[in-house]
């Protein structure tokens, strides 16, 4: 008897009573396993909050320092695309939440449908982002790649934006700080898009598994926890939309 009699031992009679295939040996019950997995996912999301936190801090500081440049930079963003993206992502969160419900209520076809919709909406978001990024590239607003101050030192040269905002020209030494705005814009939306791409990849994998019924047999943990990740990415976008697109539409 390797253990000393000093410790009590629980009777082993219910050790193998209910033992689904997916129950790992170091857990006592599927509840404990699901609980632990969900908690682990939340902790991971907290690390993601802190990861993005550094970028938000930088943005807030520099917006405070170079307000006119950040206003001018923000005017270059298209609120229509941004709003559409927000609607797309919120809808994908809805379809993802519905997917979790389908998994919990063992609706295999419903789950597959919801995951496919989420996938398509996710791709839609990235498609719109591509349109926006391409616009930036065409206008030479990508830092480090023939960045042009034209639109800011001479706003009239950019009629589309000028007709909407009638910005005053920026002095050159303030205009250079628009490059910082766009650095942060690409960093924050790029980091967000990277998380979307990873999410869409996992969604693709999940659609195949869902079709095989892997998530509608009581073991919903994977879908549930992926849902948490997807909603988190949505929450980040909600703040990015407000900070990058909306708060600087009316400058001084």
């Amino acid at each position, binding site marked *: 008897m*390797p253990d000393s009699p000093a410790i*009590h031992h629980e009777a*082993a009679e219910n050790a193998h009573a209910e033992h689904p295939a997916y129950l790992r040996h170091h857990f006592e019950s599927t509840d404990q396993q699901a609980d632990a997995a969900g908690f682990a996912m939340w902790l991971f999301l907290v*690390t993601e909050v802190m990861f*993005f936190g550094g970028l938000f801090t930088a943005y807030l500081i520099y917006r405070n*320092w170079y307000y006119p440049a950040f206003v001018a930079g923000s005017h270059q963003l298209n609120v229509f695309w941004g709003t559409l993206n927000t609607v797309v992502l919120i809808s994908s969160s809805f379809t993802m939440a519905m997917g979790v419900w389908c998994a919990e209520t063992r609706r295999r076809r419903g789950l597959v449908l919801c995951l496919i919709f989420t996938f398509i909406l996710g791709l839609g978001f990235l498609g719109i982002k591509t349109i926006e990024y391409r616009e930036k590239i065409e206008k030479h607003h990508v830092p480090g790649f023939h960045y042009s101050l034209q639109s800011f030192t001479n706003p009239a040269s950019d009629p589309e934006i000028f007709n909407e905002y009638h910005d005053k020209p920026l002095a050159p030494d303030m205009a250079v700080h628009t490059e910082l705005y766009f650095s942060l814009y690409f960093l924050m939306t790029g980091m967000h898009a990277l998380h979307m791409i990873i999410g869409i990849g996992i969604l693709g994998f999940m659609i195949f598994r869902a079709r095989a019924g892997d998530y509608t047999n009581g073991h919903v943990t994977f879908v549930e926890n992926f849902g948490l990740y997807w909603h988190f990415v949505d929450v980040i976008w909600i703040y990015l939309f407000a900070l990058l697109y909306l708060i600087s539409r009316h400058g001084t």
Partner: protein
Amino acid sequence: MSDTIVSLPDQSTARIPKMNYLTKENGILSWLLTGDHKRIAILYLISLSFFFFIGGSLAGLIRLELLTPQADLMATDTYNKVFTMHGVIMIFFFLVPSVPATLGNFLIPMMIGAKDLALPKINLLSWYLYVIGGILAIYTMAAGGVDTGWTFTTPLSTHYVNTNVLTTGLAVFIAGFSSIFTGLNFIVTIHKMRCPGMTWFRLPLFVWAHYAASILMVLATPVVAITIVLVALERTMGIGVFDPTKGGDPILFQHLFWFYSHPAVYIMILPGMGVISETISTFSRKRVFGYTAVAFSSVAIAVFGFFVWAHHMFIMGISNYAVLVFSLLTMMVAVPSAIKIFNWTFTLYKGSITFETPMLYTFGFMGLFTIGGLTGVFLGASGTDIHLTETYFIVAHFHFVMVGGMLMAFLAGIHFWWPKITGRMYPEKISQLAAVVTFIGFNFTFFPQFILGILGMPRRYAAYPPEFQILNVFSTAGATILGVGYLLPVLYLTWSLKYGAIAGNNPWQATGLEWQTQSPPLTENFAQMPIMDHEAYDYEWLENQERKEKEVASAG
């Protein structure tokens, strides 16, 4: 010193249990693909020791250079690289993972009565990330090193050096994720996998300390990750976020960097404090004084540790108001650490103290951490910090807390749990000698550095004014002694694997669930799920159990 609490089984009949976690499976793949937290702990121990000796060799080179006032052993550029790599390797590849990844991994499931950590595959991933980061760090050294100092301060690291900032940053980034996953695993395990009866306040204080450190790992490390990304982008694409010529602020880098790096020092020390709670109780045969206070002060150190980071930046250009606020907050963070020292000291009072090797290291910790911590108060006061910062006073301060404190605690823990991990005892006399040699060597090495700092010798300088030479020579002499002190355990611990005495379940007659099972343990830790029915450090309960065992043995 003739008293000892060591109680070994009869050596003529004792055997290492045939079935244990080491013998369960054989072959290299059973180790490289293991999910067993104990095997992963051993993997970490081996890789950590490797990095410790690289970092230590770099320290040896530093001390050799500083024997003479001129920069004559190596070019100043090379010296910069040596102290940078020493810092990077010692901090990220030794101190941060040391106790948590070895002792924490091995013991936490056993201490709470679980079969493994909550996420064994993530645990293995943590080790692989650590190894990959470490290989990158070694590659960096081979590729010519990096010379910015481990703090990578901008704009030096982003604009003015042409050394391997990116690869070092990547190595640290990857090692950071290793740390995050370890902390995440611990938090989930401690919350969700305690055995029946194991309430929060029956947990060993070792577990509380790791819980607090894990909170820091999870919340703080991601910020240094994004900081490294920003430095990399600044360096490669010139985004301007830290570049004054583009309107960026180099101080922002420091804010983001120290937001992690200050909690990092608590990540490093808290697990060591957890070890001390265990050893001081065992070798005084007394429960830790003020268990609740020690438990809560661990968490308090973690929480307050988040609010003080800019005390590393007092002279860097932050506002006077910020200096004031952060100095005040720093005074607060010293309090929980002091509470722990008081409580450990009161644990000793009226205890039955014996002086086995873990206890010698523990006494070393108590004295040296106290000195290091008190000098931290001098540094937290912004008035004195202005004169002492960037001098050898800082170097001495952090070596006292990290080497005199943390490394001693690590060695205390390795010796204390060595019988549990391997089933064998280390040789007592030579290990006590090594502990004393280490203590003497440490003081000779680092105490003169306090004086050097007050006299004004700057840190990170290969050349210094001749009047500082005598103290530097003392310091290097001490470092040689310290090196011997660190080499000895490697030798005799390896020796003990084959020739050490068989330890039995509980050679220290310690409380704690890990001591109630065989040494080395089974892969699943316990033959059956234990039930916790007594308080932590309950020596009366232990005596009752031993009495019952004797009765059963004599009756049967």
